């Protein structure tokens, strides 16, 4: 049997992440500051959508992060499940609400963007629908975590769900695309979507990286907090035993 206690002390993790955290905060502030300045003031308005195109700078990186964070969560879950590594377990748990937040942001900005484009806040666009289903999977994952009292068992159950989800997400995405092409009325079809103008790239790229470092920053905060909560719980249990 693997000796759990060998890995149970995540001191090294806290030490390293505490050292890099100020750098992550700084880089995030720089990237997001530059990105939003570019997005709001420098980048050109779209010839079709006008100023409404600026919602894209919030929406596209959020949609990207919704999937990126799920991927990170699935990898952390696999590590936690196979090697019983408590830091990976904490990383997966701490990622879920951040990923759900990005997913919600992608949905809301998608709706705001859709209103001027489609004349309705919600149309059953393939991408929006896929993101909505991803949001439900995040909620189910968080639901498993909050419903099982023992954090070790909750972590393993949630990890199984995260892995089942990672196998199913491509299938769901494909099936929704298929469904959408069957049902999409012609009036909503648009050719290709907005082609990305070269003037938009600095804003988009810096925001995609800025969102990523923002995720890392919040992840470190949340993991530190979760590790403290677990330490307190362990001490309470130890105290109750004596």
């Amino acid at each position, binding site marked *: *049997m693997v000796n759990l206690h060998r890995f149970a002390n995540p001191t090294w993790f806290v030490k390293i992440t505490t050292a890099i955290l100020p750098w992550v905060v700084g880089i995030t502030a720089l990237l997001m500051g530059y990105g939003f300045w570019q997005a709001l003031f420098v980048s050109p308005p779209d010839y079709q959508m006008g100023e409404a195109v600026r919602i894209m700078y919030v929406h596209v990186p959020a949609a990207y992060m919704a999937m990126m964070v799920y991927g990170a969560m699935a990898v952390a879950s696999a590590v936690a499940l196979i090697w019983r590594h408590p830091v990976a377990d904490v990383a997966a748990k701490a990622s879920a609400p951040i990923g759900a937040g990005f997913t919600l942001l992608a949905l809301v900005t998608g709706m705001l963007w859709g209103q001027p484009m489609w004349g309705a806040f919600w149309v059953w666009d393939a991408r929006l629908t896929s993101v909505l289903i991803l949001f439900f999977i995040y909620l189910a994952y968080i639901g498993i975590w909050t419903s099982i009292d023992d954090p070790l068992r909750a972590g393993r159950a949630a990890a199984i769900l995260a892995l089942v989800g990672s196998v199913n997400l491509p299938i769901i995405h494909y099936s929704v695309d298929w469904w959408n092409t069957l049902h999409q009325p012609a009036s909503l079809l648009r050719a290709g979507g907005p082609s990305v103008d070269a003037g938009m790239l600095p804003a988009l790229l810096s925001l995609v990286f800025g969102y990523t470092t923002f995720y890392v920053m919040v992840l470190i905060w949340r993991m530190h907090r979760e590790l403290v909560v677990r330490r307190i719980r362990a001490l309470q*249990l130890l105290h109750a*035993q004596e």
Partner: protein
Amino acid sequence: MAFSGRNLTCTRGGRTVFRDLTFDVAAGAALLLRGPNGSGKSSLLRMAAGFLPPAAGHFAWDGNPATADDLRARVAWVGHADATKAAFTVAENAAFWIRLGGGDSSATGRALASMGIDHLADLPAGVLSAGQRRRLNLCRLAAGAAPLWLLDEPTSSLDDASVTGLIAMLQQHLDRGGALVVATHVDLPLRPSATLSLGASR
């Protein structure tokens, strides 16, 4: 066919229940687990059945370390709940578990008689009393061939006559060369038997 545990440590929900526990059960012998609530009697049984992986240490059959699958393949289990379906008759309940264990359903009648509930065979199990349900759960043991029986408080809800019947059944298992690990809070006069006290050091 000796069963043993070596340096076992049990943690549940981050709490260490016991550590560095070692025991041996020879073929034909019983090990009685004694100790206060929360001392880990049930947890040790769940580990021995392969449900709960030990945080440290291992089990062994004849000195060979046993995997969870090895453990599962050799035990008969009686837990807190009686695994009876109210919608089935007493005989149907017993027959299902006996057949699942690879036994012949013709053994059902004898199994029921071994715990003195053969006269209830055609009643729905839903009308049984707690003690009768427990006897129904215990009767499948006699029909199985598992070398190691793990029993968690098997005497709970049983009246004196049924306890005597149970002791006779357990002694018969020992006499046939089987082994027993029993968590119990009452004295079971089984021979030969050893007692393992849990939670005594604290």
